[in-house]
């Protein structure tokens, strides 16, 4: 089960890297990339849980594996909407930035 432990560490490290990226990268596209990295780290942890549950002649528990597939699709949907918003914002404002701006006239 060393593979499982190693990939658990990989998943944890990826989540940490994503958190770092979310904090220090101000551009929304960078944040989106970091969120995707965060998601992939979480999915990988779920995969390790599945691997730990190998039984009944299977290499892994199929339930978490199936859930990860659904999760990947949902994450992709979020990315698609975010990229759409990003490009529209770039078109409207000339620069895609989500920094606080004074809304008051």
């Amino acid at each position, binding site marked *: 089960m*060393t*593979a499982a432990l190693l*990939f*658990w560490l*990989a998943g*944890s*490290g*990826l989540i*940490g*890297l*994503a*958190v*770092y*990226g979310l*904090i*220090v*990268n*101000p*551009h929304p*596209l*960078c944040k*989106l*990339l970091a969120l*995707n*990295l965060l998601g*992939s780290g979480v999915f*990988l*942890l779920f995969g*390790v*849980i599945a691997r*730990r*549950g190998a*039984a*009944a002649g299977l*290499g*892994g*528990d*199929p339930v978490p*594996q*199936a*859930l*990860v*597939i*659904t999760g*990947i*699709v*949902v994450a*992709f*949907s979020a*990315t*698609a*909407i975010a*990229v*759409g918003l*990003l*490009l529209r914002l*770039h078109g409207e404002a000339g620069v*895609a*930035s989500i*920094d606080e701006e004074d809304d008051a006239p």
Partner: protein
Amino acid sequence: METGFDLALTLLLLGVGGWSILARNMMTAVIIFIAYGLLLSLAWVRIFAIDVSLTEAAIGSGATGMLMVIAAHKVGADARRVVHPSRAIHVLAGIVAALVAVGIAALAFVLPGEPQSLAGPVMERLGDSGLGNPVAGVLFVYRAFDTLLEKVVLLLALIGVWSLARDEDWGGIPGFRLFRHHNSVLTLLARSLPPIGFVFAIYMTWAGADVPGGAFQGGTVLAAMWILVMVAGVRKVPRVSSPLLRLAIVAGPVVFLAIGFFGFVMPGEFLAYPQGYAKPLIVVMEIALTLSIGVILGLLIAGPPKGEDAA
């Protein structure tokens, strides 16, 4: 030997993942992210999740990567124009990130020693459905409700992207044309590859009932073929209001819902399959879903409809 490989893969994943976070140039970051996705799908193979590996390669790396390349191409230069945080914030972020990573890593050692698993119960009743792939069993039999709702999520993502069209452009042609590329070699590829891709997509869907694969992986291949054809300009891009396009979008969800409701009639539960008909119904459903997923993915990547004459 195998541990060495896993260790190398772990380090590579962390290194490449970190690189994509730290890269100064946005296009570089995105391209590294795609490579990261491919490495990740290798890791999924190593933990015996072939279905996930295929999905990660197709959606997580491929389709997501394509979206991000488009975004980086358009807004890549913005990075220099936004305010970057100070050095102190970087140090603080590093500390927070390290704490999070170590904390989650430590949880590996406090999870209950005896692993929990539903593998047994899944296999026990998988025979009833006639499916051979337990992951397909979870997705289309036990938790079909999740999968049905996930299709609604996908439709909504399309609504979300389309909502960003300008009113005057509505009903027009999705933005494929913006990256149209006239090139004789590309045209050759766009004429020769799609038949192979189409057969392959159907095969992946069909085989998904018994071995790794399924509607999503097949749908992604279909989407790739469609995008290729559109970008090469071999076929006309349909308008978003085209009835045929709309039919393709809703075909999968309609079949899924219809089969779900038929469950009320026979055998009496929503999303239950009549005895002995589970596998044929699921295959029919998956083929319809492959078409819809392919079209929706293609449209999501193409972006909202653009004006008639903006070339």
